[in-house]
């Protein structure tokens, strides 16, 4: 074992645990046909096998089955994965790539001596701390002391409106970064949901973060602790509506990750907010005249399209209010990937360039995307991008 020191990998620990801890049946389930390749954003922009799902599975097999050392190129192969899971619906054999990648990341996280994410993501679980840091960041941004664009940050608001509960028909999950940085989106979502006749309950600070970012970084323990707190804070039997695709995907998978009957029951209550709204379409108010002429392209967040497989309701809800066009890139990722845009800025930007070309070809005025990561990443490239329900909120004629 000759892993370089700079990798921050504990080589002794590695020698004692040669395998990656991936389920052997899962790892054997790929026939290497390659049909996933064009659906992988990193393969699309590099054309290189190590940056494709098939190549990554091959690399996992080299380490787990053939005892190859975890080296720099292995880490590059794994860490360059956006975890968009676009390969999963493309796979005729249903290879559970996301699950294998999460297992691999969990093992790598155990072996990494230093990982800022271990500490950084802790903040997300504490609403007061995140709020304090966000406001400080907002001030620093206004003093032009941080290169926001280069860091992939949005313009963070100095003052946030306060959301008030209006009933207990449904929960609105508010999350961490989205609540701290984009609360006005929650306000729009809440108005639209209320306009369909439901009273909205808001979770206590216990449900501060769903744990998605920790899970994707392989920090399983932290993710599970956040999940337990979230489940406790969203008690009862009311549907849990989620307006962030990344959060919704993980909340729906609590049952799989925790394996308890409570977690399974919890996950069954989770719905993307558009799924819920599409089912109440006849309750929604009519459109005001002014938005009809706006052309909107929907960018499907990967975790809505590939993981939740619930992207259709977004189009169903939006189509009553605006003119819609479809992007011609078969739902390829935009490169945001939660913390990915910050961790792998070059690849994230190349992936985004493909998305920008598709947006240009579509002739859309506005892009709608139901995930905060995507909206921040696309907005940083100058795209006019909103949450779909912000567009609906603006289009609804509440007085009419």
């Amino acid at each position, binding site marked *: 074992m000759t892993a370089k020191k700079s990798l921050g990998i504990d080589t002794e620990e590695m020698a004692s645990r040669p395998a990656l801890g991936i389920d052997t049946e899962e790892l*054997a*389930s*790929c*026939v*290497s*046909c*390659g*049909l996933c*390749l*064009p659906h992988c954003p990193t393969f699309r922009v590099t*054309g*290189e*096998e*190590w940056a494709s799902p*098939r*190549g990554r599975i*091959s*690399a996992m097999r*080299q380490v787990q089955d053939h005892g*190859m050392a975890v*080296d*720099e*190129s*292995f880490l590059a*192969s794994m860490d360059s994965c956006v975890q968009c899971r676009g390969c999963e619906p493309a*796979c*005729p*054999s*249903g*290879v559970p790539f996301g699950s294998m990648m999460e297992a691999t990341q969990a093992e790598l996280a155990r072996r990494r001596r230093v990982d800022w994410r271990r500490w950084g993501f802790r903040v997300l679980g504490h609403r007061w701390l995140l709020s304090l840091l966000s406001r400080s960041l907002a001030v620093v941004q206004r003093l032009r002391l941080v290169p926001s664009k280069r860091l992939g940050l949005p313009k963070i608001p100095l003052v946030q409106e306060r959301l008030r509960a209006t009933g207990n028909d449904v929960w609105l999950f508010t999350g961490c970064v989205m609540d701290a940085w984009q609360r006005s989106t929650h306000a729009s979502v809440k108005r639209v949901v209320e306009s369909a006749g439901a009273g909205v309950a808001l979770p206590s600070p216990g449900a501060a973060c769903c744990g998605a970012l920790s899970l994707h970084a392989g920090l399983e323990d932290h993710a599970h602790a956040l999940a337990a707190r979230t489940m406790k804070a969203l008690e009862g039997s009311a549907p849990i509506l989620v307006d962030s695709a990344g959060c919704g995907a993980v909340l729906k998978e609590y049952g799989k990750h925790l394996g308890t009957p409570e977690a399974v029951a919890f996950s069954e209550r989770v719905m993307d907010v558009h799924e819920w709204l599409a089912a109440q379409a006849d309750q929604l108010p009519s459109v005001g005249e002014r938005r009809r002429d706006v052309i909107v392209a929907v960018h499907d967040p990967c975790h809505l399209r590939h993981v939740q497989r619930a992207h259709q309701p977004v189009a169903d809800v939006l189509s009553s209010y605006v003119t819609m066009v479809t992007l011609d890139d078969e739902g390829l990722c935009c490169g945001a990937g939660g913390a990915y845009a910050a961790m792998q800025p070059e690849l994230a930007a190349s992936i985004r360039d493909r998305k920008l070309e598709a947006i240009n070809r579509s002739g859309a005025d506005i892009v709608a995307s139901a995930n905060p990561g995507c909206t921040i990443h696309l907005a940083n490239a100058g795209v006019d991008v909103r949450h779909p329900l912000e567009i609906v909120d603006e289009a609804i004629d509440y007085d009419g």
Partner: protein
Amino acid sequence: MKFRKADPLMRDLRRVLPSDRVRVAPLERSIMGRDASIFEGGRAGPVCFPISTEEVQGCVDAARRHGRAVVPRGAGTGLAGGAVPLEEPVVVVATKMNRLLSVDADQRVAWVQPGMINLDLSRALAPYGLHYAPDPSSQQVCSLGGNVGTNAGGPHCLALGVTSAHVLAAEVVLMSGESVVLGDADGWTPGLDLRGAYVGSEGMLGITTAIAVRLTRNPPAVETLLLAFDSVDAAAQTVSAVIADGIVPAAIEMMDKNIIWAVENFVGAGFPTDAAAVVIVEVDGLPGGVAAEADRVAELAVERGGSVRRATDDEERALIWKGRKSAFGAIAQIKPNYYLHDTVVPRTRLAEVMNQVYEIVDEHDLQVMNVFHAGDGNLHPLLLYDAREPGIMERVHAAGSAIIEASLAVGGVLSGEHGIGIEKRDFMPLMFSEADLDAQARLRRAFDPEEMANPGKVLPTGASCAEVNALGKVPEGVWG
């Protein structure tokens, strides 16, 4: 072998390509050691990603100076091991050369780079109302350079012909480092048809750096029929009857019972999972003719006990084709490995050979699925297995050999479209005489005298002169 920066070959390659496009990390060389075939023992030397013809020439020059073989690679979806690197050659990967260079819609010709994905070309041509006709099942990922290498087929090659009929010219870097154009994008050149010799040469004559392809007008009308039968015999007889009736459909594809449910499980296209076999027939052309042909096909199917479903719109049609084209990949729902054969038999003998295939597989206690281009008799029996089961490979290979022999015995051939690669190399003497193989080896050496382009593929070792009988074995460990 380790490649250090000071290695003279590396030094020369890095003079030609920036260092981030010459890779030697052990992991990368090992994952480049395989394609979509069952061969696992390959290992690449330096892996190069050129972006221009000049860079490909530079890679070939460097390899030649150091006596190193060169293996070209596209998307790595080959099923016969054609891109599997043996003995650590320089691997030249075309995926970064993926641009559409020019389109002449009036002449119906496009120049493309070899790494362009087959389906991406047809998508790019959509605004012109044109497409590229050969559509291998892997068309959403396979590259056009690889299509040229294997002379790839596809469901819609029944009426329009395989890759060779759609390639007008190829720009090729020979092993001397020289770049030549074989064929002519404007029409036929006088003299020997070198383009014809090149298409299907599986990387043994040179490296493709640009291709002039013939474009096909999108048909004004299309009808897709899904026929279901209670027996494989009835399905096969219907296929023969359609052709005998004078109809040449755009495609005739067959799937047997075992594969139908795996495919249906993935796409949910409404394939009848209780049928013994389904046949997909597509007819295209002018609306009146299409309607009449579709009616006649339906009639012939019903006469043989079949039931008929017609796709009512493009979406339904696309779903049926998605099912057909993802069949190989769906196998891991049943077993983690498959060994796919690719023999061709006379259409009239289809049912007979399929029944033999079922018997052979039973004898060796294996599972088989059949999904294939029935219209041109191109069988694709897939033997399913789990490589972790001890002793299984012997049975898989024994059954495979028996299937090949059964196909050849009725006047069939070794490969329809996947190529010979490593997989069928040692079966070549079953089909060709010494004189045939010698002629092929001499043609190859006319292009590549030192045999440095993709060595160890297609032609058995010592294919020239009398060495044929002492066949070189496939290197140890290559059969996974």
